[in-house]
C-alpha cells in the first residue's frame, strides 16, 4: 500500500482539463444540494447527472467502481440502518418479523438519506480522481489567492506521505526484532499501536523541520511575491462548468418540486 493522490484518469479528458477551482465549486454545489434536499428524487436526479458526466471524466469504469465500492457500501448501510431504526414505521408494512418491522415510509426515507451520501461521495471521487494535487494547489493560489505557505506546504507534506507507510513497516519490523509485538492481546496491541504511532510522529516532525529549512534556503520565506511557473487560468469552458453546476442543481430541485416530492432540511 502506498498513499499517493495522483489522478487516475486520462489527462486529456474534458473533466480532467477543467480548472480545479471550478471543479471544486461544482462538487461543492452538487454535494450541498444533495445534503440539503431530503426527498428521494432530488439526489436521484443529481446522481443521474453525475453518472452522465462519468464518460467525460476519463476515469476507467473499473477504477471508478473500485474507488466507490466502500462509499456505496456505506450508503447501503445508511439505507438499511435508517429503514430499520426509523422512529415510526409508516406506510404499508413490507416486512414484519416481530421486532424487525419495515414500512414503505421508513424505507423511502432511508433510501433518500443513502442517495444523498451516494451523490456526495460520487461527486467527490469524480472531482478528486481527475485532479492533480499540484494543479489544485496552483489554482487555489492563482484563482483564489490562497497563501502559498498553505498550498505549497500542503503539497510538500503530501510528498512525504508515502515515506510514512514505508517507515511504519520498518518500525513494526524493528519492534518485533526487539521482542515486541501485539499478538492476540488487544490491550498490548493498542499500546503497541500508540507507541509505533508516536515513533512515526517524532520522525515525521523531524523530517518536516528539515524540509522547511530546505524550502526556506531556496527563498520560500522571502517576502517577495512569488511568480508561478505553471499557469492556471479560468477559460470559457471552466466558467461554463462553474455556471452549469448550480443550474443542474436547480433543475433537479425544480423537477422534484414539480413532482410534489421535494422537501428540505430534514
Amino acid at each position, binding site marked *: 500500500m502506498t498513499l499517493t493522490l495522483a489522478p487516475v484518469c486520462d489527462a486529456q479528458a474534458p473533466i480532467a482539463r477543467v480548472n480545479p477551482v471550478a471543479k471544486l465549486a461544482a462538487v461543492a454545489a452538487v454535494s450541498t444540494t444533495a445534503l440539503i434536499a431530503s426527498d428521494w428524487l432530488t439526489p436521484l436526479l443529481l446522481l443521474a447527472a453525475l453518472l452522465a458526466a462519468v464518460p467525460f471524466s476519463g476515469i476507467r469504469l473499473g477504477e471508478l467502481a473500485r474507488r466507490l465500492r466502500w462509499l456505496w457500501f456505506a450508503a447501503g448501510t445508511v439505507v438499511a440502518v435508517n429503514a430499520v431504526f426509523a422512529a415510526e414505521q409508516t406506510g404499508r408494512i413490507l416486512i414484519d418479523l416481530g421486532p424487525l418491522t419495515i414500512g414503505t415510509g421508513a424505507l423511502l426515507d432511508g433510501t433518500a438519506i443513502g442517495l444523498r451520501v451516494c451523490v456526495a461521495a460520487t461527486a467527490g471521487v469524480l472531482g478528486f480522481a481527475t485532479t492533480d494535487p499540484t494543479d489544485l494547489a496552483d489554482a487555489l493560489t492563482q484563482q483564489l489567492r490562497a497563501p502559498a505557505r498553505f498550498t505549497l506546504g500542503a503539497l510538500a507534506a503530501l510528498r*512525504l506521505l508515502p515515506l510514512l507507510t514505508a*517507515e511504519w513497516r520498518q518500525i513494526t519490523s524493528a519492534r518485533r526484532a*526487539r521482542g515486541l509485538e501485539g499478538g492476540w492481546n488487544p490491550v498490548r496491541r493498542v499500546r503497541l499501536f500508540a507507541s509505533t504511532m508516536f515513533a512515526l510522529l517524532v520522525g515525521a516532525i523531524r523530517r518536516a523541520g528539515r524540509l522547511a529549512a530546505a524550502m526556506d534556503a531556496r527563498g520560500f520565506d522571502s517576502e517577495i511575491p512569488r*511568480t508561478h*511557473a505553471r499557469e492556471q487560468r479560468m477559460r470559457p469552458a471552466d466558467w461554463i462548468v462553474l455556471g452549469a453546476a448550480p443550474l443542474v442543481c436547480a433543475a433537479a430541485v425544480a423537477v422534484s418540486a414539480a413532482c410534489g416530492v421535494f422537501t428540505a432540511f430534514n
Partner: protein
Amino acid sequence: MIPVEFRGFAWRHAGRRAQAVSGVDLRVEPGERVLLLGPSGSGKSTLLAALAGLLTEDSGEQDGDVLIDGKPALEQRDRVGILFQDPETQLVMARSGDDVAFGLENQAMPRDRIWPRVHEALEAVGFPYGVDRATHALSGGEQQRLALAGVLARRPDLILLDEPTANLDPEGAQDVREALRAALADTQATLIVVEHRVAEILDLVDRVIALGPGGALIAEGPAEAVLAEHGEHLAAQGVWVPGVPLPTRPAANAGDAALRGESLTLVHTGSDAPALEDVSFELRQGELLAVTGPNGSGKSTLALLAGGLVKPTRGHATVPGEPRPLHRLPARRLATRVGSVFQDPEHQFVTATVKDELAFGPRQAGWPKDRIEARVAELLERLRLAPLANANPHTLSGGEARRLSVAGALAAAPGVLLLDEPTFGQDRRTWGELVDLTADIRDEGTALLAVTHDRDYAAALAGRELVLGKGRLAEEHRR
C-alpha cells in the same frame, strides 16, 4: 564570486546550554573552493546553516558576524544555495521540473524565463529524465542530482554542500560527484563543502580548513599539506583521510551452522517481480557473512526474512533446536534466537533509558532479575555506554545510538545477529569502533550476517560474501 567571512562568530541553539561553535574567525576568498573538515560536534553544519541564512534570531543566540560579500548572511540569502545530505527532505514538488522551478518562483522570476533555466539546470547535472518525471519515482542519487539542479538554477554566488553524498549508495554517490564536477566547471561561484569522505572530493577544492571541537581552527592550507601534516590526527577524529590504512580483523574458522535460509522468496502484494527469489544459504557460528549487491537487489529483504521479521511468500529460515520457522516464533522468543539491527537505530528504541533498553530483551524473555542485572552491567561496560546508563536513547550521538542498538539486539543472548548497513554514513572513528565491536562479537562464536554497501567493512571482517542481483543469488564466494 563573493568573499565569505566569520568574525568572532558564536552560536548557541535555542534550548541548549553549550554553544555549538564559538570564536570562529574564517575567511574564504571570492571564487575559492574550500573543504571544511572536522569530527562530529565541530559545528561544521552550524557554520553552513549560518551562511545559508537559516540561523534566524528566534532559533538561537548569535555573537559576532557572518558576512557574505560584506553584508550579514541573513540579508544575502538570495545569493546562496545549499545542498543538504538527505534528498527526501529537500524536494518539495511532485514533478521534477516543478521542483527546480520552485526556487525560481520564490525569486519572482517571470514564467517565460523560468523554464529555460529549469532545462539548463537539469542538463547541467545530467538529469536523465524529462521535467514531468515524478520525484518519488527517482533513486536517491537521482533525487540528489535534482536537488542540486534546484540549487544551481538560482545561480547562487556562494554554493554550500553539506555532506552531499552521505545518504547515498556508492553508485548514487558517484553520479552526484560527477554531476557536481560538471556543474562546478561551469560556475565561478565560491564553494564550501563539508564531507567526511575526503578522497572523493579533493580534486574539487583548492583549500582545506580543519576544525576541532566547537569550531576551533586546527589547520588550514592546500589539501596535500594539511593532510600530510595532520592526517593521522584528523583520521583519529573521524575524518576519512586517504592513505591512512584501515584495520582488518580476519576471522578464525567458522563453526557449526547457526541459521539456515531455504528458498527464501518474497513477493509484495500488487507487484509482479519478487523482491527476493529462491535464496538459500547457511550462516555459521563465528563467521561474518557479507550480503552485497546494488540497490533494489533484495539485500534488506533477505535480512528481514532471515531474521523472521516478515513472513516469506515461500521458503523459511530456521535455527538449530527450534522446530518452527523463525517468522512463526512469538517475538519475545525470536529475540533470544536472532537479533536484528536496523539501519536507523531510533526505530528500535522502545524504552526511555539506555539501561532499560538493554534490560528489555532479557525481561521479555523472562530471565530472572539478577541475571538481567548482570547482563546489563556487562553490556554497558563492554560497549562503553556505562556513563550514559540513564540517558534517553534518543539523545545519543550517531555512534552511541548505533552501539546501543547493537547492544540491545545482543542483550537476550541470541546466537545470530543480523546487521543492515551497520556502517552507513558513519565517520571513520565510529567505523573503526563498529569493526572492532562486530569482530569481538563474531570471535565469541556469534554468527553474523551484515547487509552492506561498504567494501572496506566487508574486507575487514567477512569470511564469505553473498552477492545479490535483482532479487536472486548472483554469486557466493570466500574472501
